[in-house]
C-alpha cells in the first residue's frame, strides 16, 4: 500500500518540473495519469502545435517571472513597516512607451510561427490520398470512406455497470468504442466533418485536430499520422446528455494492413447486408428478440431512457407503462398524439406507432430517427423488448419483416 502511495506522490511533486522540461512520458495516444501537458503529437500539425505551444508557454512564463519579480521585490523591500519612504513619481512617458513597444514586438515574434502553422493546418486539399467523412450524432460518431464504400457507427463500448461504479473500470474507461476509425500511416487523410443533429466537436489530441461538427456545414481537416498506434479523443462541444460518452478512437496501421482491413470491412459489409436480409426474412422467436433487444436497448436507448426504463423526470419519458411523466406540454402532446400518454401517465401505445417512433424519431425532441442507424432485426428486437420488459406485458412480438415493411 505504501509504495502505491509513494508512486502517486512522485509524479505529483515532479509535475511542474516535467512541464518545464517538456518530458512527455505519456503512453502514446491516451492521456496519462496526472498528465500536465498536451499528449505526444503524431502528426506534423500536432508537432507544430506542440512547438508553438511550448514556445508561447516559455515566453509567458518569462513575462510572468519578470512582472512578478518587480512586484515581489516591491512587496519585500518597499514596505512601510521597514520605514521605507514613498517616492512621489506618477508618470514617465519614456517608460510607458518602452513597455508598450516591448510587448508588441514579442507578440509579432509569436504571430509569425502561429500564422505559418495556421496556414499549414487549413491547407487541407493538396496531396490528399484518403477521404473520410465524419458525422456527429447524439451521441456517437459515424465514419464513412466514400471511395471505399465503407460506413459504420462508432459508439462508446464502456458498459453501464462501469459508469455506475458497479464493476471495476477498464483502463480505457470512457475512451473505448465498439468500432474504431482505422487509418493508414504516412498518408494524407482529409476529413469532412459534419453533424446530423446538434453541434459536436471532433477532437483527437495526438492528431492535433479539433473541428466542430456543425449541421449544415462541412468542416475540413487533415492528418498524416506518422506512427502506428491507437489514439483516443472525445467530443469537445456540449451536445446534450451523452456529451461525455461519445469518445473517438483512431487506429493507425501500416499501409498493407489498412488495405487488408478495407477488404475485410467491404466483405463484412456484404456479409452484414446479406445477414441483415436473411435476418429480416427470418421469423425470430420471442426469446431471441428479447435477448437482442436488451442488448440494443442498453447501447442505444439507455443514455436517455435509463437502463431501468424509468427515463428522466420531465425530460426523457419512461418506457414502463403506468409510470407518471410530468413534462412540458409540447412534449407530452407529441406522445399523446401517438397514443403513448394519457392522464399524466405513460401508456402502452399501438405497435404501429411504436415502430414509427423508433424508425423516424419525434421531431422537435431529442428522440432521433433510428431507421438509418439500426438494422431491421435490431429495431424489431428493441421494440419487442420494450413492450415486454420494465413491467410491460403486451405480449407483442415484432418481426424484422414488419420493420422492413414500415420503412
Amino acid at each position: 500500500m505504501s509504495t502505491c502511495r509513494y508512486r502517486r506522490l512522485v509524479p505529483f511533486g515532479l509535475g511542474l518540473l516535467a512541464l518545464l522540461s517538456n518530458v512527455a512520458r505519456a503512453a502514446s495516444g491516451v492521456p496519462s495519469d496526472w498528465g500536465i501537458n498536451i499528449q505526444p503529437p503524431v502528426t506534423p500539425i500536432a508537432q507544430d502545435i506542440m512547438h508553438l505551444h511550448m514556445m508561447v508557454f516559455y515566453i509567458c512564463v518569462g513575462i510572468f517571472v519578470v512582472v512578478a519579480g518587480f512586484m515581489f521585490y516591491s512587496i519585500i523591500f518597499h514596505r512601510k513597516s521597514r520605514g521605507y519612504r514613498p517616492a512621489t513619481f506618477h508618470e514617465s512617458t519614456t517608460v510607458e512607451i518602452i513597455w508598450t513597444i516591448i510587448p508588441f514586438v514579442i507578440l509579432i515574434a509569436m504571430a509569425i510561427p502561429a500564422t505559418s502553422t495556421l496556414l499549414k493546418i487549413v491547407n487541407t486539399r493538396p496531396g490528399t490520398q484518403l477521404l473520410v467523412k465524419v458525422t456527429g450524432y447524439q451521441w456517437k460518431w459515424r465514419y464513412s470512406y466514400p471511395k471505399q464504400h465503407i460506413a459504420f457507427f462508432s459508439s462508446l463500448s464502456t458498459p453501464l455497470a462501469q459508469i455506475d461504479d458497479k464493476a471495476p473500470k477498464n483502463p480505457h474507461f470512457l475512451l473505448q468504442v465498439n468500432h474504431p476509425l482505422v487509418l493508414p500511416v504516412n498518408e494524407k487523410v482529409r476529413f469532412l466533418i459534419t453533424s446530423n443533429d446538434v453541434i459536436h466537436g471532433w477532437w483527437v489530441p495526438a492528431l492535433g485536430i479539433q473541428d466542430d461538427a456543425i449541421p449544415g456545414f462541412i468542416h475540413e481537416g487533415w492528418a498524416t499520422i506518422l506512427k502506428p498506434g491507437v489514439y483516443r479523443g472525445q467530443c469537445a462541444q456540449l451536445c446534450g446528455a451523452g456529451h461525455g460518452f461519445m469518445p473517438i478512437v483512431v487506429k493507425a496501421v501500416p499501409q498493407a494492413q489498412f488495405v487488408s482491413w478495407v477488404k475485410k470491412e467491404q466483405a463484412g459489409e456484404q456479409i452484414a447486408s446479406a445477414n441483415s436480409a436473411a435476418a429480416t426474412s427470418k421469423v425470430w422467436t420471442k426469446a431471441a428478440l428479447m435477448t437482442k433487444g436488451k442488448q440494443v436497448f442498453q447501447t442505444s436507448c439507455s443514455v436517455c431512457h435509463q437502463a431501468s426504463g424509468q427515463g428522466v423526470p420531465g425530460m426523457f419519458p419512461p418506457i414502463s407503462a403506468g409510470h407518471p411523466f410530468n413534462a412540458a406540454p409540447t412534449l407530452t402532446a407529441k406522445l399523446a398524439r401517438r397514443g403513448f400518454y394519457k392522464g399524466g401517465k405513460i401508456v402502452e401505445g399501438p405497435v404501429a406507432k411504436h415502430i414509427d417512433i423508433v424508425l423516424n424519431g419525434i421531431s422537435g425532441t431529442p428522440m432521433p430517427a433510428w431507421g438509418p442507424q439500426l438494422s431491421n432485426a435490431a429495431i424489431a428486437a428493441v421494440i419487442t423488448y420494450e413492450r415486454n420488459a420494465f413491467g410491460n406485458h403486451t405480449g407483442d412480438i415484432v418481426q424484422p419483416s414488419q420493420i422492413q415493411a414500415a420503412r
Partner: protein
Amino acid sequence: MSTATTAAHGHDSHEDHPTGLKRWIFTTNHKDIGTLYLCFSLLMFFVGGGFAMAIRAELYKPDMRFFSPEVFNQLLTEHGLIMIFGAIMPGLVGFANWMIPLMIGAPDMALPRLNNWSFWILPFGFALLIGSLFAPGGGPAGGWTLYPPLSIQGGIGTDMAILGLQILGVSSILGAINIVVTVLNMRAPGMTLMKMPMFVWTWLITAYLLIAVMPVLAGALTMLMTDRHFGTHFFNPAGGGDPVLYQHVFWFFGHPEVYIMILPAFGLISEIIPTFSRKPLFGYTSMVYATMSIAFLSFIVWGHHMFTSGMFPTSDLFFMYSTMLIAVPTGVKVFNWTATMWRGALSFETPMLFAIAFLVLFTIGGLSGVMLAMWPSDQQYHNTYFVVAHFHYVLFGGSVMAMMGAMYYWLPKWTGHMYNETLGKWHFWLTTIFFNVTFFPQHFLGLAGMPRRIPDYALQFAGWNQVSSLGAFGLGASQLLMVYILVQTIRGGAKAPAKVWEDAHGLEWTLPSPPPYHSFATPPKIT
C-alpha cells in the same frame, strides 16, 4: 421661481424616508440601492457557488454518482449564468451605485427612480432563471452560451431562462444609462473628466459597452425564441438557417461582456493600490487610454471564441491578431499597477492583499489568454479545462477578488465600523490558497485532454480532478467566513474615522463614516 420649486421638491423627498421593508422597495437613494445590489450579488454568489459545489462533487471521482448527465448539464449552465449575470454584474453595479456619486461629489444618481426599477426587476429575472430548474424537463442544459441547435431541444425551462435573461438585459441597460448620465452631468464643479477617480472612468466606459451589446444579446435570444416556437429558421440548417450565425451574434455580445465584468474591477484595483502604496496611481492618463483601447478591441475579437467553428482562414487570422493585440493595453495596466507599488511605502491590510492577489492571478489569466489567442495551439485548448482554468483566473481571481478587496476597502466607510483585520486576512489566505488548488490543476487537465462540460471522465484525469474538487470545497467553505465578517462589521465594531485609510484620496473620504443618508447636497469644491 424655478429655484423655489426645486427647493420645495427637494425638501419633500428628504422628509420622505420610509423604514422597514418599504424603505428598500421604494428607495430612490443610491446608497440603499447600492446595498441592495451588493446583497443580491452576495446571495447569487452563494447560489451559483452551490451549483459549483454540486459540479465539483460529481467530478470528485470518475463515476456517475449524484446527478444524471442531464441534470449535470443544467447545473453547469445555471452556474455560469448566475455567476455572470447574478454575482459579478450586479456586484459591480452595486459598487457603482454606492461609490460613483460619492466619488464625483454628486447628491445621488441622475435618474433615481430608474435606478430603483433597474434593481427591482432583477429578482423577477432570477425567479425565472432559477425557477426554470423546477419546470418540467428542468432548466436550460446547453451551457451559458445556449448554442442552437442544442438549446432548441430544451423544454419550457429554456424559455423561462431566455425570458429571465431578457429581463436582466433590460436591467443592465437601464443601469448603464443611469451611470453614463450621472457621470457626464453630475460631477462637482471643477471635476473635469481627467480628474475623475479611475473607478468612475472604468465604469463610464463599461456603461457604454453595456449599452452597445446588451441589445445584441436580446436579439440573439429573441431569434432563439422565435426559432423554438414561431417556426422561424434563423439557426436551423434544415430551414436554410445557420447555427454559426448564432455564435457570431452571441459572441459579439459575449466578448465585450467579458470586459464589462473586468473593467470596473480594474477601476477598483486602481483605487486600492495607490492608497496602500502611499503613492499616486502611476500613469493615470495612459490608464484611461488603455481602458478605452481594451473596450474598443473587445468589439473586434469575438471570433476567438469560434476558433474551432471552421471560419475562413482570413477571419481566423484577423481574430488571432486582434486578440493578441489586447495584450498590449492590458499589459500597460498591469505594468502601471506594478509601477504604482514600486518604491511606495506598502502596507498589507486585507484590501491590499486582495489587490495583490488580483494582480498575480489576473496576470496568470491574462497570459493563458495570450496562449489561447494563438489559433493553432487553441485547437488543443478549445473546449477543454484549460479554458475553464483561464476564465476562472480572470473572473474569480480577477473580478471577484477585486470586489472582495473593494468590499473590505469601503466597508468601514459604508457601515462606520472597522472590520476584524485578523479574520479578513484569514479570509484572504484561505480564498487565495483554495482558489489556486481548485483552478491551477485545471490547466493540466485541459492540456492532458479533458473536455469541459463532461459529467464523467477517463481514469487518467482522476488525480487532478480530485485535487480540484477538494480545493473547491475549501474555497466554498471559506466564503462563509466572509459572510461572518460582513455581519459582524455591520452589527458593530471599532468606530471608523472619516478617512479610514492613512493615505486614501478622494471625495468619499471627506464624508463621515457612515456618510449621511443624503450626501453632497451642496457640491464640494474640487481643487
